[in-house]
Each structure stands twice: as C-alpha cells, then as structure tokens.
C-alpha cells in the first residue's frame, strides 16, 4: 500500500474530495450480504503535528494520534506512524475528544420535528400499539431508544457541525419513559451501525396529564406515587416470577414487559435519569432514588446553583441545559410589578450555574436539549459561560469526559486514549472561548467529516517580506472590519476554490498610485506566499509569517478577571430569603405578657414564659431571669400558643388533588411540599405555627396528608412536623361525586352519596384483607406478596396508625361515615362538617372530632344549612371542635375566625381561642407537643399587640421551636433592602431587555365588528385555576389558588 507523504498543502482539499465520494461500509464484521466489490480501503489514519487535548486539562503539543478501524490505537508525542496509515498533518490544529450530548432526542422523532426540543405535550399514549403493557399509558420503561432509533443524516450533520460525535438518545414522553442509548452521529445508514451502547439509562419524569383528561396522574404527587408503586411492583414481579417457576401449578400473575424492563434499573446497571422542572424536583428525585437504591442522574433545569449543597452531598451528577433565561420584562415599571425578585435574581445568576456546580465538585454534562435554536445557539451559549468565568476545562469536561462517565460509556468515549472509539473534534485552539474560532473536522467512529474544507488564516499579526516592490511590513488578520489592515491600507480578500486566496492590494500600499493589484496567495509551510504581476509585466511577491497569534494556542487560559461566584443567597430565593434557620437561644424569657396558656391554668396576666432550647421550661409570674437568657419584654402584649390550622392547602406543589381516580390513597402530600410558598410566611404573620396540609376532596379516598410546622426558610423535609401522626383525606358528598365538575364528569364511580359510602366500604374491606396477608407475609396462594401502597395506607387507618380526615357537609353522609368507622373501629376527624350541629350528639358519642368554618355557607347546595353557631353548638355537646381555614387568605386570621364563636353561640374567650390552638392539637394527636403553653411542650407561640380575639390586633412575633420565625418589625425593615435589590437588578436588565425589544409596537386600532363574544365561563375567575394547578411553579404568585370548600375538586 502506498504511504501518503505528509503534505500540508494537499491534505485538506483532498480529504474533502475523498469524503464526498466515499461509500459507507460497516465498521466491523457485518451480517449484511455484500453487494458488489468489497471495500478494502484501509481505515488507518495518523494525525500528526497536532496539538491534542486528550482530556480536559491534558494537552500534548506536536503529537501523533493513530486511529485504526474506528478505534484509537495510539496517542503521544513519540508515537510512530504505522506503515499502513494515511497521514494527515494537523499542524496548528487542536484535537479534542468528540463532544457528547447527554440528553438528545436525535433520531427518535419524525424528521420534521426540531432537534433538541422535548415533546411539547405530555405523551400520554403508549408509543407502541399493542402488547403486554402497563395499565398506565405513561409507564413504558420497556420502550427502548435503541429499538426505535432511526438515523437522520441531516440532523446528524447539524449536530456534527457543532462538534458532537455521539449522543445519548432517550424517549421523551411519559413518566417511566424507557431506555436510553448512545448513538454515533455519523452517516451510517443503518441504526445498528450507529449504536454504541444501549440500555444505559432509564428516563423518568414527574409528568402529569391534563386535569380534564380524567386520567391518572393529574398531579405531581400522583406522578411520584405512580413511580413508587411501579418500582415496588417491579421488585415484586421478579420475585414472583421466580416463585412461579418453582411452583409450576400456581396461578400466573399477568405478565408485564414494563415491570420486567425495570430490573436493570433496580439492579443499578442502568442510570435513572430524572427530568426536573424546578429547583424542588432535585430533592424529590433523590428521595426516590434513595428509596429504591437507584443510581440517579438529574436532567437539570438551570437552577441547580440554588440547591448545590444537596447535589454535592448526594454525589449526583447533572445534565445541564444551556438555554439562559431571557431578560425579564422590566421596561414598564407598572407591568414590572409582575416580575418578582426571584425571577430577577435567576436571570442574573443563571449563567453562573455551571460554575457553581464546578466549584462544588458536582459533575455535570451539557445537552443541547432545551435550546430554542440548537444550531445557532449552542456555541454562543457555551462561550458566554466561559466568558463569564467558567473554566474551559470544566466546559470541555461537560461535553466529553463527564457525560461518558455518568452515562456508562466512560470506557469507550469521552477522552482520547488508546482503546477508545475514535471520536474527535479538530478545531482552533481557542474553540471554547473565541467567537471567531471554528471546527475544521470531526471524526465519528474513525470516519472523518470535514466541516471547513479551507482552513482559515490564523488570526494575528503577520510579517510581510516583499520582493519586486516594497510594501507594508505587517498585516493584521482577523481584526475589526472587513479586509486586512496593513497600516493605513486595507487588503480585500476573496477565497479561491480549492485552496488559497486572492488579496486585492491597493497600489498606494506599494507606492504605485491608484492601481489595485491582485495577488494569488497560497500556503507555504506555516506561512504564506503571494504573487502578482504588475501592469508592466514585472512580478511582485511577498511571503508572510505569523508574528503574534491573536489567541494563545498554549494551555487553557482562564478568563482574565473572573466575576465572583454568586454568594449563597439563602432560601427561598427572592424577597424574604433566609440564610439559615433563625437562631435558637439556649434560654429565652418572654416577660410580662397576658399569657393565654390554653391549659387549666387559664389566662395569666403579667406572666412570663421561659424556654430552654426550644422547649417550654416554665410558665408563671415573676420568673427569675436566668443568666444568659435572651429576654423579650412583652408588657402590654398577649402571648398565645401558636395557631394550628387543621385544614390547609398551602405549600403543596403542582396539584392539591389527584383528581383522576376515586381512590388515591397512595399519593402523598409529603412528597410534594413547596417550601417556597409565600403563604408560609404570610400565615406566620397571622400567628400560624402548625398546619395540616390536606389532599383535596376530589375522591372518596384521597391522598396521604402532611402535618407541617411553618418553618420559613427550611427545605421541604424541614417543614415536616417530626413525630406527628400520618394522616389521610377522605371526602363525602358533592365533591367526590363530581356534582359541580361540569357535564363531562358524569361517569366515574361514585356519582351519588350511595356510591361514596359503598366504595369506601369496599376499600376498607380490601385493606383489611390486605393487612391480613401482610401479617401472614405472603399472598393468598403463598407467593410473594405485592406491596399495595394504596391499601397499605388504608390499612394503617384501620390499625389506628393513620388519622382519617373526612371531608363532609351533610348530616346524612356524616352519619353514614360515623357508622362505617364504628364498624371498622377507627375514629375519624370530620372536616367542614357544616351540618355537624345536627348530629352533634352522634359525633360526641362516637368521640369523633370536627374541624369547621366559622361562618361560610351557601356556596354550594350541600352547605345551605350551615350556621355560624355550628362550632359552639357542637362544642357544647361535647364534640372536640376546631376552626380551620382551607384557604390561603383566611389562614392568616384564624384568631379572628375563632372570635366569631363568642358572638355566635356564646363560647368563652378561652374556649374560642382553643378552637385554633389546643383543640386542633388534640385532633391531630400532637397536643403533648404543641397547642398550649405548659412546661415540656415545644415553644411555639405568638406575641400579639393586643387581645388576640380583637380584629384590630396583629401578631408581632411568631416563634416555632423557640426560634423567632416571624418578626413584624424585622420583615418591615427588610423592605428597603428588597426595593434596592430590585432596582439594581432592573437597572441591569433594562438595557438587555431594550436590545431584545428592538422596536416600538404600533398602537393597535380595532377595526371591523368585534363579533359576538361568548360568555362560556363562570363569572368568577377569568381562568380555570383547577386546570392550572399542576403547572404552578415555585415562587409563583398566589392567584390561582386552591380551596376545596368551593373549588369543587
């Protein structure tokens, strides 16, 4: 075989020509029958004189790289060129490992769909038509990118043009979405040839279906519950199949490809890639991963910097999108009120996201996914990160080494090392930082794809030596403006086909008047040579040599001055961020207040409250001031126990109701707490310290609910009231029977109160049987028992381990449930219970508490008999009564709601206050910890500036666990800082925004008849807050709120 001589001048265009003519042949042994003459062209290349970045931070200058049959054979400075290699001289070029896109949908979508964009709508339907699939259309872990992947030559070329040589492709729709595969971005015609590795990952997303679909799940908590049950099922399924193989006569459980497909995930041979939508999803994904021992990887959303410590501690990697938020709409100061401080902060900090992760040692990979314009946006976005201080090595690692390692191909891709696949990018040395830099060629599986047939001139100052004339001594390539600057003169340049240029040199530059001379310029070694003929026939020549390159071709350079990393901003982001939990003084003495103990001691005037490490130590008059105690002077103030809201829906993310199925006891509010909900702070300002966050009332048996403390500044887990009982929501009457849902909802069982009673009875029976099986430890036929999370929660109600909170209004439905509960031996608490006064004797006899409204009524048919004396009347009959809010707004003034029971029904002030303190504490089984002021209880209390039952009083301070979580004066004092911060960020955003706006919008003049406008919606609410619920992100304004008193779902 002929050995190519190193020929810099000829190498480039020749390669380009070869390539266009090349016929693709399989890389290795193929089963495909050969047609025609075998292609025996050797696929051995030696890239010589290259600057090789073998991996981020490791650079070999003037090195040789040998590729054989798609594999890297050798790399180094002293590697000898094999005899059979085609030699390619890459002097002046830099070779990088091929770039990897960690989360692509390349080849999985119809060619018309834009590459890089995830499916726009939730893909509810199963991607395959038939077979033994999971009952839920969003659960299709058996779908396999490798099985449906189709090479798309044009899309591959677009990605190659950016430097990508391989991508992990993964199904985009659904919840358990399917298996991901690495594919090469070459132009192999057959999918099999492009596949590098399959089954490397399982993509998981907390996706929901539209509320009006009626299909499961419509809420985030439903989505998580479905993942949990399915993973649990997959574990059981494997054991069950094994058991069946040992018990041939046993009944077969239905076969499921979905459950079988999850085995590698549970055995940790696959990575669980969790798609995240906001900064709260990280913790949710990590919790699931931990629960099932998965190997998690997060598909990020750009806000990872906000929760970097969690990611660091979990040792989890992240796939980062590159799209940055656009400048917020701040040009109109009035409209800018809609832009919160959090959004402004994020706009400002988003480009530092990757740097923050790098500094914390959190591994991350980049993806083109999410870029609105992949081809045009990728490099500007990446270079912007580098310009703003990201280390080039980190940027390169995120495109090479890290995705390969995180996603199971670290031994094949990601670096330039012997034994790895030949995936390369040949480019300028300053590729990652210069707008001018470009990519000459990429190599995919040892195959060369030339992007830039003609290598551009290296930017910098070139020295010129003239023969036959005298001209400028220097010319600058790549300077500002068109053409080349040579002193006072400009040379115009035009590229020639093949190689070389025409330089048009003004005669004046050569001292020859107004002529223009055309020089043909060709490469000559590292330099250039130009020739022209003067009008008189004489020859003029010049040679050019690069003096100073514009960009250093040396080792990676860091940006000259790094912008400082953003300081930890506290949590939650925005107006009232908190750097940490408020301090807990060892000793705290509140002095001289009117102390509402809500115990047998009554209300003590001029009394003191002593707290030791968050626990009440003493209550009494004239307590001595212990040494070192923090003293709060409260003369003239009233101190009450913290208010407990026994029915709240604040701080629940993306849907309060799993409103699809009639029984959803498997869903958990505790999975989806939203610690960024400003409702927490607002209710602290109303003296609330504890709340029961209930699932909605759309189903007869709803979801597991969560008791929290309103610890503003804590994360989701930190909100939970440790040791408080588990709870569950049930619902009776109009809501679960869908009375007010519209005409589309008339078929789900139940549609009547008859059906509600029967479906609850049916599930209680099922749970009882399930509990018996669990005690036996196996299924009825002796096989492994499937864990049923739905029945498990109901069984816990029967065991007395889970409190049942039963939404109901009318006495008939309440009575029916009383009898049902008595039959099964548990004692529910009734919620709303607005006709409770009609059967107060029954409730009292059954020892069943009631949590009600003070005076709401008439908003739907089943509440026309509600009366404001309900609470007092029930209390007088011996029912344990509380008053709750069920409302984000009313939650801020439960003390006032309690006061109404003095007027309506004649409760004493202490009895009235008990409705929102000690009584709800007793209902929730936490009265030994909160709800009154007595030694040994947790120090949750409120300082009021007057009688807490007066409408004109305010909570001034709210303490939880002996920490001051709310201080009205301090919050007011924050205002100036908030406004300043806002103003500063708006000043920064304004120029960016104006750039984007471009032109003034013309004033709109209406023309023609407006036409009939239909009134197709109820008068209240201009949009459907229910349909929006599952979209509401953290930090959203509170307008689309949920209230299950009127929300009907």
């Amino acid at each position: 075989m002929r050995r190519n001589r190193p020929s810099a001048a000829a190498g480039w265009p020749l390669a380009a020509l070869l390539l266009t003519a090349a016929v693709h042949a399989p890389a290795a042994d193929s089963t495909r029958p050969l047609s025609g003459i075998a292609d025996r062209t050797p696929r051995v290349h030696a890239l010589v004189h290259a600057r090789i970045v073998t991996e981020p931070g490791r650079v070999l200058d003037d090195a040789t790289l040998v590729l054989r049959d798609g594999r890297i054979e050798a790399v180094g400075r002293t590697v000898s060129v094999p005899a059979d290699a085609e030699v390619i001289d890459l002097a002046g070029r830099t070779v990088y490992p091929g770039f990897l896109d960690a989360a692509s949908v390349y080849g999985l979508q119809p060619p018309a769909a834009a590459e890089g964009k995830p499916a726009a709508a939730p893909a509810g339907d199963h991607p395959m038509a038939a077979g033994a699939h999971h009952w839920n259309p969003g659960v299709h872990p058996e779908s396999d990118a490798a099985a449906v992947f189709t090479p798309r030559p044009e899309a591959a070329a677009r990605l190659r043009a950016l430097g990508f040589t391989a991508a992990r492709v993964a199904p985009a729709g659904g919840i358990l979405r399917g298996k991901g595969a690495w594919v090469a971005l070459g132009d192999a015609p057959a999918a099999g040839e492009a596949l590098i590795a399959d089954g490397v990952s399982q993509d998981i997303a907390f996706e929901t279906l539209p509320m009006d679909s009626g299909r499961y799940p419509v809420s985030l908590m439903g989505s998580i519950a479905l993942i949990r049950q399915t993973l649990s099922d997959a574990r059981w399924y494997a054991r069950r199949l094994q058991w069946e193989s040992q018990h041939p006569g046993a009944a077969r459980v239905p076969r499921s490809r979905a459950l079988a497909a999850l085995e590698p995930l549970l055995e940790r041979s696959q990575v669980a890639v969790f798609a995240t939508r906001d900064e709260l999803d990280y913790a949710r994904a990590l919790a699931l991963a931990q629960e099932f021992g998965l190997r998690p990887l997060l598909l990020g959303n750009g806000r990872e910097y906000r929760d970097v410590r969690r990611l660091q501690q979990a040792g989890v990697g992240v796939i980062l999108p590159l799209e940055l938020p656009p400048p917020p709409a701040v040009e109109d100061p009035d409209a800018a009120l809609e832009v919160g401080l959090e959004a402004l902060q994020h706009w400002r900090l988003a480009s530092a996201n990757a740097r923050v992760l790098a500094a914390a040692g959190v591994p991350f990979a980049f993806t083109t996914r999410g870029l609105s314009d992949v081809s045009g946006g990728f490099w500007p976005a990446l270079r912007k990160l580098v310009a703003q201080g990201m280390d080039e090595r980190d940027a390169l690692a995120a495109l090479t080494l890290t995705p390969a390692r995180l996603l199971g191909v670290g031994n094949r891709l990601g670096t330039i090392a012997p034994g790895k696949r030949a995936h390369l990018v040949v480019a300028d040395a300053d590729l990652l930082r210069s707008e001018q830099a470009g990519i000459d060629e990429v190599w995919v599986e040892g195959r060369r794809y030339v992007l830039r047939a003609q290598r551009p001139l290296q930017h910098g100052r070139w020295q010129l030596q003239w023969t036959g004339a005298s001209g400028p001594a220097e010319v600058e390539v790549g300077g500002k403006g068109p053409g080349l600057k040579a002193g006072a003169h400009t040379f115009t340049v035009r590229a020639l086909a093949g190689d070389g240029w025409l330089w048009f040199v003004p005669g004046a530059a050569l001292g020859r008047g107004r002529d223009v001379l055309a020089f043909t310029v060709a490469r000559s070694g590292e330099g250039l040579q130009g020739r022209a003929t003067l009008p008189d026939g004489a020859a003029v020549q010049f040679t050019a040599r690069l003096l100073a390159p514009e960009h250093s071709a040396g080792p990676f350079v860091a940006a000259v001055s790094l912008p400082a990393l953003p300081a930890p901003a506290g949590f939650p982001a925005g107006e009232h961020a908190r750097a940490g939990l408020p301090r807990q003084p060892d000793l705290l003495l509140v002095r001289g207040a009117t102390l509402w103990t809500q115990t047998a001691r009554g209300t003590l005037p001029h009394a003191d409250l002593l707290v030791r490490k968050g626990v009440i130590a003493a209550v009494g008059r004239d307590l001595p001031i212990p040494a070192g105690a923090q003293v709060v002077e409260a003369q003239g103030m009233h101190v009450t126990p913290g208010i407990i809201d026994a029915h709240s829906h604040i701080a629940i993310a993306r849907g309060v109701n799993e409103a699809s199925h009639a029984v959803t006891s498997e869903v958990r509010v505790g999975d989806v707490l939203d610690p960024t909900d400003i409702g927490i702070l607002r209710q602290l300002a109303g003296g609330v310290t504890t709340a029961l966050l209930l699932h909605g009332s759309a189903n007869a048996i709803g979801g597991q609910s969560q008791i929290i403390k309103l610890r503003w500044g804590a994360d989701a887990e930190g909100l939970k009231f440790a040791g408080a009982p588990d709870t569950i929501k049930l619902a009776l009457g109009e809501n679960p029977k869908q009375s007010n849902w519209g005409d589309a909802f008339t078929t789900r069982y139940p549609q009547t109160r008859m059906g509600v009673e029967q479906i609850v009875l049916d599930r209680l029976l099922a749970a009882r049987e399930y509990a018996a099986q669990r005690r036996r430890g196996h299924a009825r036929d002796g096989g492994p028992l499937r864990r049923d999370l739905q029945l498990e929660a109901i069984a816990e109600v029967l065991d007395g381990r889970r409190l049942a909170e039963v939404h109901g209004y009318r006495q008939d439905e309440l009575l029916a449930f009383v009898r049902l509960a008595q039959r099964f031996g548990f004692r529910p608490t009734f919620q709303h219970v607005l006709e409770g006064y009609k059967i107060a004797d029954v409730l009292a006899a059954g020892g069943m508490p009631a949590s009600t409204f003070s005076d709401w009524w008439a908003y739907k048919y089943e509440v026309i008999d509600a009366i404001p004396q309900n609470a007092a009347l029930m209390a007088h009959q011996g029912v344990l009564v509380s008053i709750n809010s069920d409302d984000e707004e009313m939650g801020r003034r439960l003390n006032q709601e309690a006061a109404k029971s003095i007027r309506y029904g004649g409760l004493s002030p202490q009895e009235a206050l008990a409705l929102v303190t000690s009584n709800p504490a007793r209902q929730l089984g936490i009265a030994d910890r909160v709800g009154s002021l007595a030694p040994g209880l947790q120090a949750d209390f409120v300082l009021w500036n007057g009688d807490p039952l007066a409408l004109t009083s305010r909570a001034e301070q709210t303490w939880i666990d002996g920490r001051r979580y709310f201080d009205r004066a301090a919050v007011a004092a924050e205002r100036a800082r908030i406004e300043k911060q806002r103003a500063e960020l708006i000043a920064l955003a304004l120029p960016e925004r104006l750039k984007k706006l471009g032109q003034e919008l013309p004033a709109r003049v209406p023309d023609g008849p407006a036409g009939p406008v239909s009134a197709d919606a109820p008068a209240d609410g201009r949009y459907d807050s229910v349909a929006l619920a599952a979209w509401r992100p953290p930090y959203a304004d509170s307008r689309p709120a949920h209230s299950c008193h009127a929300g009907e779902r």
Partner: protein
Amino acid sequence: MNRRLLVLAGLLLAPLAHAGAVLLDGADLYTVSHGVITRGQLLIVDGRIAALGTQVRAPADALRVDLRGQRVYPGLLAANSVLGLTEIEAVRATDDRAEAGAINPNARALAAVNADSELIPVARANGVLSVHVVPQPGRTGVLSGQSAVISLDGWTWEQMRVREPAGIHLFWPESEIPDWAPAALAERMRKQLQQRRDALERALHDVRAYAAARGAGSAPDLRWEALLPALDGRVPLFIHADGAVALREALAFIDRERVGRPVLVGGADAWRIADVLAARRIPVILGPANALPRHRGDAIDAAYRIAARLAQAGVRIAIANAATAMAAANERNLPYQAASYVAYGLDPALALRAITLTPAELLGVADRLGSLDAGKDATLFVADGDILDARTQVRQAWIRGRPVDLQTRQTRLYQRYRQKYAPVPDQG
C-alpha cells in the same frame, strides 16, 4: 298599651311594628357625620330621623326604647355586592350575576334582585341595611350594566329601591396571565384580553356616533342610552381596576373621555398612585382588607395597609367586600373588613365612615343614608359594642323606620337544633 311593656318588647329581638314615633333613648349615637353623642336620644317619625341629640322633644305617644349601654349606628352600606343576584354559587340556576357578552351597560341589576333571598336577612342581622348591587362581567365582559342601591327591606325590588341607576360599571380589561401558564392557555388568555380591549374601544366609538346622530328617528339603542349618562357625568362611572397597569390605563381613559363622575373600584395597587388620585379627586371603593397581596413580592401586609395609605394621601375611600357570591353570603362581615384596615393604621372613625357615609356620598344617596342626621332615613341599628369587633352583637335594626326582623334561616336552624339538645346554655 302599657308603656313599660313596650319598653320591654323593645329589648327583645322580635320585630316591633309601630306606626307612630319611636324614641331611641340612652344609647351612644355614632352619627358618623358629627361624632358620637353619648347617652343620646334619637327620634324616628314617619320613617325618618326627626331629631337627635342629648335631649330631644318627642311626642307624648312616642314609643320609647331604652337602649342604655348600647350603641346606635347608621345602617352599613355594602358598596360593592352581588347580594340579591345570587343564591348558591354552585347552582347555576340561582346565579344572575353576569350577562353574556362584553357590552351590557343596559343590564339592570335591580330587576333581578330576589327580594326573598335567604342571604339578605343574614346581612341585615349584622347591621348591613343597604346594598349597592353591581352587575358583574362574564369571562369576556367589559361594561356589565347598571347598578342600584337597595335597602334590605321590602316585598319587592321596587320597594327596596333607593336609587337606580346608581351608576354604570366598567371592568377594565386587565391581564391576569401568569408568566408560567402553559403557552396554549396563555395565548388563549391574551386573545381574550385583546377582545375585551377591542370591545371597549368599539363601544366608545359607537356610543359617540350614536350620540351625534341622536334624534334621527330610529328606535333607541338600549346600550348607548344607558352608557351616555355615565360618560357625561349624569351618573357615576364605576371603573373596576386593581393592578398598576390597569389603574394607569383607567386614569388615562377618564382623562381622554372626560368622564364626569369616575369612581374606582378595587384598587389593589391604588396606593402606588395615591397622590395622583388625591390630586385628581378620584375616590376609590376599596376591596376587602382580607385579601392576599397582589404579588408574591409585595410586603406581607400590603393588602392590609392600602386603606391607611390612601386615607393619609387624602383619597376618599369607601370599603367594600369583594363582589363575589362567596362574599354576598357573608356580606355581614363588611364591618370586619373595615376593622382589619384599622389594625394596620386606618383611623377607626374613618373606617366606620368608609362603610356608611362615604359610600352613600359616592352612590348619590347621602341625602337619605350613611349617617345619623335629622331628615335622613331612619335606617339604623343597635349594637351592644363596637361594630368593628367580631364579638359584638347587633340587637335591633330599623330600615326607613320599620323595625327589622333579625331572624335568619341560620338563627331558625340554630333554635331548632338547640331544642334537639335542650337544655343548652341560653346564649346569642
């Protein structure tokens, strides 16, 4: 009849029919217009307040009601309500709040007021004796109709009428699209907002054209006949707007169209332009204090402080509940909305005025309602304490001199079920 017996009867809750003069004796009179007359006397003759003071001359046969230790207030005026137009929110058949379409200035709230609504006695029982009934916009609504001031006593709406039309209602098209709304929904909402804007522009154009061509002989256009008086100042134009952008646009509109008697309703962001409103003498009927701040980033007490801020700047304010079905069922809580503003700096006397005399002035009924003054309707009530306190009981009430039955569906149910458990403590 024995005078002593009559006095005793006056202390009972039962309605008291008496054709002649009535002397309310010994209560503190919260006149609103001229302070508090302690241990005063107030004489009702022919349905009107004939005289009041520390000592008034009463006819010999006047029925004297001993109210020592009590307070007398003018009836509260709910300045923005749908009471009478709705009964049970979730039952569509009972809902007459909003007519279809965008431009309905001719729709008359009064004609749809259900005199026998069960919600009315509940409002009355806490001193809310007059109501401004406001037609509401549908999803696409802009000009919702003609409102009316009614008193909560009468066999029919005709008898309840105090003033009609009280004004025309323009609901300023306001964007409520959350920036995180899914694209398709956001687009739908944007379109709808534009439709509302277009409908308003077109209506303004058409009404002017109609006015110019008036008398040309064709049948009257009901819409423009209703709208014109509000544009030229014969009746107030109530402009409902909350956000800063909407308020700005509404002010520009008032200016451009030379609206004669504009009143803003809602005004969540009005405090931001308090000085402008004061300078231009544009009054505001504020929404309830018990509302969430408009934005996440607003001060946590922003909604509570609006009233004090506006009052301080010199803006005339009335305070109202939200005109929702939910609020109509609890119109009785009107004084508590005012009280919550007091907790955040509003002067208590001003708070009381904002639910009595100021709304009466804005609604053009101050000659009859809003304060205890001789010559005004005897529409007033007796309470055992501060009406701004939720623990206070309303004991008696008169509307146009007629004693009001304070029983409600709720008190009847309460009595009935107390008997089920009798004996129970005998309280309120």
